[in-house]
């Protein structure tokens, strides 16, 4: 591969755009072919995912053209909208107000600034250690101790999922991997592509193979998830040339992404239910429904980052 990063990136984005266009066409065609209501519902979801991919594609292209800072801003906004959604569903008392103000106006910017300055060790401990200790202090000072642990836990969970976990996605682009300098965004694109393709393939296979719907996600069936995951991992393997991995390493890492992504969506479905939500916002408008779209990413991103960092950055330097 003698393509420059720029050329590779454009080629991949072009391919994805083409794929989305084909999928849009196929989706519209398929809606007219079937009358089975369950399949129609799944197709509807699939078509909305494909539509979402267009907007994600647009955002990504712009962010890439503008450089790494734009990438951070895009993901910081995603964190903001995800946290806003989380807080909207969480019952909060007025004495938690300061904790939430801190979460929105201090923690989100701080986390992404730390990432921007490349302080990986602080970045990875800021929310789980420092914020984790700071938040209960802010709330305890108000001396309103009713259901204290529960309230604190919800704010902390919101921050972990929406800020800490999501911020690991742009962190993938900043990993200093030897022999892969300046190509970080490609690795991020690889990561996002595997996640997105797996999601779409799972819905596709669920619609095609049928079966009983999963409890955690009415749009997917067990067979669909298995087949979709397998194909998603194969897609990732096929993309090995844009990563620092060899083909079998790409296969293993794709399996990591697919597996943790699936677990992430199961856990977030449980969180959603325990918050008593009817559903996350299903309307995807870039600013809403962010948690629903990023559920798999929340688990996959930190793990992918940690594993890649351990084996390709830390171990490689020894």
């Amino acid at each position: 591969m003698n393509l420059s990063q720029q050329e590779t990136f454009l080629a991949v984005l072009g391919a994805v755009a083409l794929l989305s266009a084909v999928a849009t066409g196929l989706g519209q065609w398929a809606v007219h072919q079937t009358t089975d209501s369950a399949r129609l519902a799944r197709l509807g979801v699939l078509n909305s995912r494909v539509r979402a991919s267009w907007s994600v594609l647009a955002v990504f292209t712009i962010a890439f053209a503008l450089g790494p800072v734009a990438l951070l801003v895009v993901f910081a906004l995603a964190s903001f909208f995800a946290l806003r959604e989380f807080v909207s569903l969480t019952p909060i008392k007025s004495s938690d107000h300061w904790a939430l103000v801190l979460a929105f106006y201090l923690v989100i910017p701080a986390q992404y600034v730390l990432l921007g300055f490349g302080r990986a060790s602080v970045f990875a401990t800021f929310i789980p250690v420092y914020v984790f200790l700071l938040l209960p202090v802010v709330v305890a000072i108000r001396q309103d101790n009713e259901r204290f642990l529960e309230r604190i836990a919800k704010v902390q969970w919101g921050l972990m999922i929406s800020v800490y976990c999501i911020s690991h996605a742009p962190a993938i682009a900043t990993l200093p991997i030897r022999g892969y300098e300046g190509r970080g965004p490609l690795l991020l694109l690889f990561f996002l592509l595997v996640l997105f393709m797996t999601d779409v393939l799972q819905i596709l296979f669920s619609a095609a193979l049928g079966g009983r719907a999963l409890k955690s996600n009415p749009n997917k069936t067990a067979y669909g998830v298995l087949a979709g995951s397998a194909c998603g991992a194969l897609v990732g393997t096929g993309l090995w040339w844009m990563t620092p991995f060899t083909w079998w390493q790409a296969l293993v890492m794709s399996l990591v992404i697919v597996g943790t992504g699936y677990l992430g969506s199961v856990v977030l479905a449980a969180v959603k239910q325990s918050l008593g939500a009817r559903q996350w916002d299903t309307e995807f408008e870039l600013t809403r429904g962010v948690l629903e779209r990023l559920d798999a990413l929340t688990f996959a991103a930190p793990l992918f980052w940690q594993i890649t960092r351990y084996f390709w950055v830390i171990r490689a330097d020894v």
Partner: protein
Amino acid sequence: MWLTRLLVGAYPRWIGSAPTAAQRIYFGNHTSHMDTVVLWAALPEELRSNTRPVAAKDYWDRPGIRGAIARDELNVVMVDRSREDPNADPLEPLRDALEHGFSLIIFPEGTRSAQPLPGPFKSGLYHLASEFPQVELIPVYIENLHRSMPKGALLPVPIISTVRFGAVMSLAPGEDKDAFLERARAAVIRLAS
């Protein structure tokens, strides 16, 4: 405007009525300073220029950014809550705006409440309804906003709030004041569930 949307969403949901250019009085629950801006922001753009929020003079009519927002952006109708002059009718500026064809946004509780569900309504809504029977009355329920900015808070917590618009209602012939105000309040509460 865009800041409001970013912070609290302000997503409109038209349940019993549609956004039309008819002259209207929107009345809703009042839980936060941002209610006025949020309800206004939830209206379609072409209706906004013709819709004026009603707000307390003692809070909004001040120099600085608050007054600037109220006058220039929202085109607020100021109401005097203080009643310094016992003969002055505080509803006079509202009548004036209605006669000029503007739609109004009012919060008939008269003050912010800590609960999401509204308390008893003041009689102003009744007087306006009987004097302007041709104006459509639209109940509005603003969801979630009381959690974003509780009384006394300085900074709003970002949250997704929904503004629900209910079905058109009007004063029934011969309906007395208390019955009407209770019915109006119930219409807002019904939108909450």
